[in-house]
C-alpha cells in the first residue's frame, strides 16, 4: 500500500506533500484518479487509505445520487468540492404508476441553492423523478454561467415557461433533453427563446411536447448549430418540415422524426428520400407518431447503420415493421408497440441477429378494444433469432412456462428480464399452472441477471427459486404475487446483491419485513404497498435501525394500524425535514 511504504523522500518535493509518507505528490494522484470513471471503481479507490480518499474526492467531477433523500446537498458538497455533473433520482419508481401522491417531495430547489454557492461551475444536471418548478429552472439558468446540459425524465412541476428561461439565459447550453415528463405544455414559444447568437447546441429533444413550435425559428436554430448531433422533434413537425431540417443537419447521429404523416407530392417524396440518404451518421431513430406506411420507405437508406430504433410510439403493423427491419441488420436495440404482433417479432428474429435489447409496449393496456398484441410465440421467435438478447421488457396477455423456459435457453445472457403479463395473477394459459417454473428457468439459466420483474400467478416457489439462484440480482419488482411471508424471506436471505426491492399487492407481512433487518442498510430502498405490513411492524424496524428512514404513506380515513405504503431507505441525512403531512416518518 502506497501510504505505508517508506520511500526515500525527495526534499525538493517535500513541501508539496500533504502527507509525507505518500510516494506520490497529491497532484499526481489526483491526476491519475481523475481518469478513473466508473462509480464503483471510484468508490473502491476512496476506501484504500486517507490519501486516496482525499485525492478521489478532489478529483471527482461527476456524482450520481440514486435517492435524493439518502444524503443532503451540504454533505455532498462538503465531500466533493469540484463537481461539474450531478445525476439525481427522487421519487420511488412506483410513483410513475400513480402509487405516490402528488407533492410527495424530491424538490430539486434546495439542491440548486446549495449548488449555486458550492458548485458555481456546474455544467450538467440529469434528473429523474424529481419535482422541478419553473422558478427552479429560472434559478438554474441564472446561477450557473457555465451550464451545459439539462436532462429531465419523469419529472413534474414545471411548464414550458421554465424551458423558455433555460433557452434564454443558458448561453453555453449544449444539451436540452426533455423526455417523458409531467410538464405543463403551455405553448411552443420556448423554442424561439434561443438567441440568434446561440450556436452551441448538440442535443435537442422535445419529442414529448405537443404544441407547435415556430418552425422558422427551429430551422434557423438547426442551421446555425453545426455541432448538433441529436435532434428529436415533436408531432407537430410535418414530413416536409422534417426534410428541411435534415438538409440543414446531415451530420445528425440521433433523429426523432415528427408525426411522419403528410400528403406529399412526388417531388417532396424524393426530396425527403434524398435527405435521409444524406444522413450517413444516423445510428438512432425514433418518433414516427403516426407513420403512414407509404413513407416508411424513405427511411430505408438511412437504416444500414442504425443501432437503436425507438418505435415505442409508432403504431406499426407487422408488415411495415418487417419491410423496415430488412434494412436494419445492425440493430442492437429495438422498442416497439405490440401492434406489430407476433409476426412482426418473427421478422425481428429473422433480420436482426445482433439484437441485444427488445422492449414491447402495449397499445391497448386497458383492453378497451380488440387488441391482439403479442404472445409467447413472438417471444420465442425473437429468442431464436437473437441469441445475444440480454435486455427484455415484454407486455403480453398470455404466457406459458414452457415458452419462457425456451426463451432463456436460447438466450442465457439476460441481465434485465422484465415480463409483464397484463392480467394480475394470471396463470400459464395452457396448463393453468402458476408461472413459477417460468421465472425459475430465468434465474437458473441467466446467471448474470441483475434486474427482474415478475408477473402472472406466482406462489412462494418463484421466490424460493430467486433466492436460491439469482445471486447477481440487484433490482426486483413484484406485483400481485406470492403466497406467504416465506416468499419475501427467501429473497431477502438469498440475494446478496439486492439493492432495490419494490413490491405491491402481495401477501407479505411483518415477519417478511423483519427478515430484511440485516439487509436494508446495504440496499438503496424497499417499497411495499398494499401488502400485509402494519404500522407497528414499521415502527419496530425504525426502532431497530436508526440509520434507515422508515416512511409510511397512509390515505386519509384509512385503517390506522395498516401500513398501506411503506418506503424504507438508508440515509445519512436523517429523517426528511420536508415531508408532507401524509408521509409519516417513524
Amino acid at each position: 500500500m502506497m501510504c505505508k511504504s517508506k520511500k526515500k523522500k525527495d526534499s525538493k518535493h517535500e513541501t508539496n506533500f500533504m502527507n509525507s509518507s505518500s510516494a506520490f505528490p497529491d497532484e499526481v494522484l489526483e491526476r491519475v484518479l481523475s481518469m478513473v470513471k466508473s462509480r464503483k471503481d471510484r468508490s473502491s479507490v476512496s476506501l484504500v487509505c486517507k490519501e486516496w480518499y482525499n485525492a478521489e474526492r478532489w478529483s471527482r467531477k461527476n456524482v450520481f445520487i440514486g435517492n435524493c433523500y439518502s444524503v443532503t446537498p451540504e454533505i455532498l458538497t462538503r465531500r466533493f468540492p469540484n463537481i461539474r455533473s450531478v445525476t439525481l433520482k427522487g421519487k420511488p419508481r412506483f410513483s410513475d404508476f400513480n402509487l405516490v401522491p402528488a407533492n410527495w417531495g424530491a424538490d430539486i430547489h434546495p439542491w440548486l441553492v446549495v449548488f449555486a454557492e458550492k458548485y458555481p461551475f456546474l455544467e450538467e444536471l440529469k434528473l429523474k423523478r424529481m419535482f422541478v418548478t419553473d422558478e427552479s429552472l429560472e434559478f438554474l439558468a441564472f446561477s450557473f454561467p457555465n451550464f451545459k446540459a439539462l436532462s429531465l425524465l419523469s419529472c413534474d412541476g414545471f411548464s414550458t415557461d421554465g424551458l423558455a428561461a433555460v433557452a434564454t439565459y443558458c448561453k453555453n447550453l449544449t444539451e436540452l433533453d426533455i423526455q417523458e415528463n409531467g410538464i405543463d405544455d403551455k405553448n411552443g414559444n420556448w423554442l424561439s427563446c434561443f438567441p440568434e447568437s446561440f450556436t452551441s447546441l448538440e442535443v435537442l429533444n422535445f419529442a414529448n411536447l405537443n404544441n407547435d413550435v415556430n418552425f422558422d425559428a427551429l430551422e434557423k436554430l438547426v442551421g446555425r448549430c453545426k455541432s448538433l448531433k441529436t435532434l428529436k422533434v415533436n408531432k407537430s413537425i410535418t414530413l416536409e418540415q422534417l426534410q428541411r431540417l435534415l438538409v440543414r443537419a446531415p451530420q445528425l447521429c440521433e433523429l426523432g422524426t415528427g408525426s411522419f404523416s403528410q400528403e406529399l407530392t412526388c417531388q417532396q417524396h424524393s426530396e425527403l428520400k434524398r435527405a435521409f440518404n444524406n444522413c450517413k451518421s444516423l445510428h438512432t431513430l425514433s418518433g414516427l407518431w403516426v407513420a403512414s406506411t407509404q413513407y416508411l420507405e424513405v427511411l430505408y437508406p438511412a437504416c444500414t447503420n442504425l443501432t437503436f430504433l425507438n418505435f415505442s410510439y409508432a403504431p406499426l403493423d407487422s408488415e411495415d415493421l418487417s419491410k423496415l427491419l430488412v434494412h436494419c441488420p445492425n440493430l442492437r436495440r429495438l422498442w416497439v408497440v405490440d401492434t406489430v404482433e407476433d409476426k412482426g417479432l418473427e421478422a425481428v428474429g429473422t433480420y436482426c441477429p445482433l439484437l441485444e435489447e427488445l422492449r414491447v409496449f402495449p397499445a391497448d393496456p386497458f383492453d378497451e378494444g380488440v387488441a391482439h398484441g403479442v404472445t409467447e410465440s413472438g417471444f420465442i421467435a425473437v429468442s431464436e433469432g437473437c441469441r445475444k438478447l440480454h435486455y427484455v421488457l415484454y407486455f403480453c396477455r398470455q404466457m406459458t412456462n414452457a415458452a419462457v423456459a425456451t426463451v432463456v435457453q436460447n438466450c442465457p445472457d439476460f441481465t434485465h428480464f422484465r415480463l409483464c403479463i397484463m392480467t394480475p395473477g394470471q396463470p400459464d394459459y395452457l396448463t393453468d399452472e402458476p408461472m413459477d417454473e417460468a421465472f425459475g428457468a430465468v434465474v437458473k439459466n441467466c446467471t448474470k441477471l441483475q434486474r427482474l420483474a415478475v408477473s402472472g400467478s406466482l406462489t412462494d416457489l418463484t421466490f424460493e427459486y430467486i433466492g436460491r439462484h439469482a445471486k447477481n440480482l440487484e433490482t426486483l419488482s413484484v406485483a400481485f404475487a406470492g403466497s406467504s411471508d416465506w416468499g419475501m424471506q427467501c429473497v431477502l436471505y438469498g440475494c446478496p446483491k439486492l439493492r432495490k426491492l419494490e413490491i405491491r399487492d402481495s401477501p407479505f407481512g411483518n415477519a417478511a419485513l423483519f427478515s430484511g433487518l440485516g439487509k436494508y442498510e446495504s440496499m438503496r430502498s424497499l417499497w411495499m404497498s398494499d401488502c400485509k405490513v402494519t404500522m407497528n411492524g414499521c415502527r419496530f424496524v425504525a426502532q431497530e435501525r436508526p440509520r434507515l428512514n422508515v416512511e409510511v404513506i397512509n390515505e386519509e380515513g384509512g385503517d390506522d394500524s395498516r401500513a398501506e405504503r411503506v418506503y424504507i431507505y438508508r440515509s445519512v441525512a436523517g429523517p426528511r425535514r420536508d415531508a408532507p403531512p401524509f408521509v409519516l416518518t417513524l
Partner: protein
Amino acid sequence: MSYHLFLHQPTTPSNLIYSSSSFSSISILNSTNSYQEMENSLVNHETELNLKATELRLGLPGCDEVNKLQCNFSILRSNKRSSSEISTEVDSMSKSKLNTSNGSEITSHDDQDNAPPSKAQIVGWPPIRSYRKNNLQQKKGESEVGMYVKVSMAGAPYLRKIDLKFYKSYSELLKVLENMFKCTFGEYSEREGYNGSEFVPTYEDKDGDWMLIGDVPWEMFMSSCKRLRIMKGSEAKGLGCF
C-alpha cells in the same frame, strides 16, 4: 468515514458499516425468536381490532369480500378459470366457443360477482408511465391526424383538398367551399336541396353513391364522406328533388 458508502453502490454488502459480525443467517435465526414474539403480539393486537370494518380495498362499491384484490391471491387463483376466460375472451373474437355478440353470456356467468375488477380499475396497472397512458387516450380521440378529402368542381382544371376535421358544421364547410371556388350554393332545404343554385355541393359516400351535402347529420356525413364535388345545377338535377 463510513458514510461515503451510501453514495455509491458497494460491491460487497458485508462492509464497514457493521462493527459487529455481519448478519449471517445464523444470527438472524437467533434473533428471529424475538421477532417472532413481536410478530405474535402484533397479530394478537390486530385481531382485537375490527380491521374488516375499516379495511381499504380496491373494487366496485357493493362488491363483497371476494372482490378484494390486495394480498389475496388464492381468490384470483380459485377464480383463475373465470379470469383467464375473461382475458382470453377479450383477446380473441375468433374463439367460437365464446359468444361475444351476446354480452349477457358473460354477465350472467356465476362468477361475475367474484371476478377481479377489470384492469382499468387497478391503480397503476399495467405499469406504464402516465405520459404513455395519456398518449393512448389522445390516439383514441383522433383516429387520423387529419381527414383530407379531395374537392373537385365542374369545369375546374385541378382539384383541391380540405381537412374535414377542421370544420364543425355544414355552414362552416359550405362557406369555405364557396370561398375556395368562388361560387354560391344558395339556401338548403330538405325538400328542394339547393334548387335554383348555379352550383350544388355533393359528396361521394362509402357506397360510391353521390349524395347531396346537408341531408344527413354532420357526424354521419363526416364518417361516410369520401370526396366532394361541386356540381353544376344542371348536373345535380337528379339529387335534390324527389
